[in-house]
């Protein structure tokens, strides 16, 4: 194999590969990226056995072939090369070395045989559809913060992507929760997605997927089966196993009878929560909200370090309410609001609170209060 490739193109492809490979793995080949050159295209493939990413880029292929080399090392080398450099990659097959040349710099990296590289078995997808990148971006960006890290409830370690009945018909829906907060984001159902089985997309896959969604014009081809999900742009294909578990019935968690409505400027609210929370260094800091006739008082009382209070103007015309929340959870949901005011719907100090943006039901957040 012998190829010449522009440094920027190579960096992007190898960067994607090195973030997929498992750093702490015990199987050496899984640390490697598989490079395959054919025609005028070179593909870079990396896997951790749960996720596989293939990035196809244009390059000058002088001699077709393939090899595998440490993704992290190659990435480090390319990263340190000067911008605009032309990089030559060549291997002589027998010696088990990949030569990396750019300008007067020269590297020889040990390779592992291509045959040892595990390629994810292809599978039949039950559903194939296309969705614009901004739609998928919104679905995952607004839900991923609520993914649980608790290994004991592994079925919460991802975003539940499925088809559901929304306010105005069928929707593509993403839900994530850790039992303390929940995000439910809807998007219009893309054509051809009706039969999509509901799948739990793992946290790491969501992170990798995010890198495919930056281009506003891009159309993402989505394929879903009971066990796998695939997202593809013309260049990059991300295939991932899904979490083998049953996502809990979240609909019971979303309150629909909460009637005490408070409307507040989301960014002012987030800033104030952030300020008062400063006095407490605990992991689970509780912020108390006292709400009374268009007035919200946020307060934190940390016996060891001090206390803080801040008042905010809000729209609220119900009975006086005192309710506590984990400061981090409040900040996270408030920062999801980007266009309109945040609307909170409370029931009592012990019941889940609902938050949405204005009257938009396509992004709904639920957060459990804390005793304060």
């Amino acid at each position: 194999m012998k190829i010449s490739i522009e440094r920027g193109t190579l960096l992007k492809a190898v960067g994607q590969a090195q973030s997929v490979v498992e750093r702490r793995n015990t199987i050496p080949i899984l640390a490697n990226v598989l490079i395959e050159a054919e025609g005028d295209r070179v593909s870079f493939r990396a896997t951790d056995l749960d996720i596989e990413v293939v990035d196809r880029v244009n390059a000058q292929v002088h001699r077709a072939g393939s090899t595998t080399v440490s993704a992290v090392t190659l990435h480090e080398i390319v990263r340190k090369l000067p911008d605009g450099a032309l990089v030559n990659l060549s291997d002589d097959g027998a010696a088990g070395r990949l030569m990396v040349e750019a300008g007067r710099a020269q590297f020889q990296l040990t390779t592992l045989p291509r045959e040892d590289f595990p390629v994810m078995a292809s599978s039949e997808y039950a559903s194939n559809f296309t969705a614009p990148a901004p739609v998928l971006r919104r679905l995952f960006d607004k839900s991923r913060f609520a993914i649980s890290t608790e290994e004991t409830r592994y079925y919460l370690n991802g975003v539940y992507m499925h088809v559901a009945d929304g306010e105005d018909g069928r929707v593509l829906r993403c839900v994530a929760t850790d039992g303390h907060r929940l995000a439910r984001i809807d998007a219009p159902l893309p054509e051809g997605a009706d039969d999509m089985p509901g799948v739990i997309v793992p946290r790491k896959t969501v992170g990798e997927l995010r890198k495919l969604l930056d281009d506003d014009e891009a159309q993402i081809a989505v394929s879903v089966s009971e066990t796998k999900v695939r997202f593809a742009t013309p260049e990059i294909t991300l295939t991932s196993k899904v979490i083998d578990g049953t996502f809990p019935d979240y609909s019971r968690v979303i309150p629909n009878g909460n009637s005490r409505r408070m409307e507040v400027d989301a960014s002012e609210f987030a800033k104030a929560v952030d300020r008062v929370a400063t006095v407490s260094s605990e992991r689970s800091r509780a912020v108390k909200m006292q709400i009374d006739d268009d007035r919200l008082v946020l307060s934190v009382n940390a016996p060891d370090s001090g206390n803080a209070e801040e008042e905010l103007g809000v729209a609220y015309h119900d009975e006086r309410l005192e309710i506590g929340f984990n400061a981090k959870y409040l900040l996270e949901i408030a920062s999801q609001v980007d266009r309109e005011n945040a609307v909170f719907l409370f029931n009592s100090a012990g019941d889940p609170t609902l938050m949405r943006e204005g009257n938009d039901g396509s992004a709904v957040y639920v957060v459990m209060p804390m005793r304060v």
Partner: protein
Amino acid sequence: MPALCRDCHTSLDAGTRCPACRSPRVLSHPELFDLTIAHIDCDAFYASVEKRDDPALRDVPLIVGGGRRGVVTTACYIARIRGVRSAMPMFKALRLCPDAVVVKPRFPAYVTASRAIRAMMEELTPAVEPLSLDEAFLDLGGTARLHRAPPAVLLARLALRIQRELGLTASIGLSHNKFLAKIASDLDKPRGFSVIGRAETQAFLRDRPVGLIWGVGHATQEALARSGIRTIADLLRWDRRDLVARFGSSGDRLWRLARGEDARRVHPNAPVKSISNETTFDEDTSDPDLLDGHLWRMAEKVADRAKAKALSGRVVTLKLKKASHAVLTRRHALREPTQLADRIYREARVLLDQSGAAAPFRLLGVGLSDLMHEGRADLSADFLDPRAAARAEAERAADAVRARFGHDAILKGRALR
């Protein structure tokens, strides 16, 4: 040389018998009235409490410990003469001493006695650092004027008071730091009173084995022996830097302790770092019901202790010992601290299910660590587990019932497994 009668507390100049009460228990030492750090260790504490409470046990060899497969928790001095030691497997103890009477530990009785002793200590000084139910460090520095007597006299009085009021005996070590005080209390057990002064510190330590140093267990002893260090004299020959280079930060500690230097202060209420409970089964078991019952009872004990101390913890640990004696521990950090048996049990249950370890097991243990005040515990509810709040309330209600009618007044069915 300053001397003291341990029975009538008369200070004298020297002699082997007290001129006032004719007692032979005279303690004399050049630094007797200058030393202030004491270690007090009750003699065969659990066994002594049992013998006190049941006079029929007085003259028989007595072992306090659990079950056929358990270990000796405490052996009385009669049993010790036959070679029984604490932490010895029960079968071995009974082979050495077949006529021994074995009783299960009655912790509530020991706690009561321990509290009474601690109250007596705290009358002498606020600087009391309990190490366990039956031993504590005391710093009596600066108390001589208040009590109008030097520390040695106060300690002799304390020992006598423990004996007269509680029917128990204790041994006292008096020195100029904790390390030496603890060694001293062990020199003359039972009913001992030993003094290690500054002047004799080095000479005293020189020929002792390194195992005398706290924290030097079997593994460290072996590592030291590989470097030719067996006695403290061997340690003294080493340069400080070489010890650090070879043994890391503990090398520095060894260097200082070998010279009898120990700057640790006596910390009253040294914070509890973890709460745990474990059970060695009578027979290795893989019965899921039995394991589940044990898990619940241990979670409950851990929670009870946390509640009693107004503590809560964020990390739940499960300990498993397989039939092969291989030990496995698994831990899980909760999002917020808890003191509820229900949550501890559920976490431990998941850890057991996910451990992948194959039964049968020989021992099961549950622990709670990363402790903090209970005020921060169990504040947020989980909406995917809506019954958790009800279970928590039920547990609090059961606690209230127990507080009034005793521990066995109300039990979970699971506790009977």
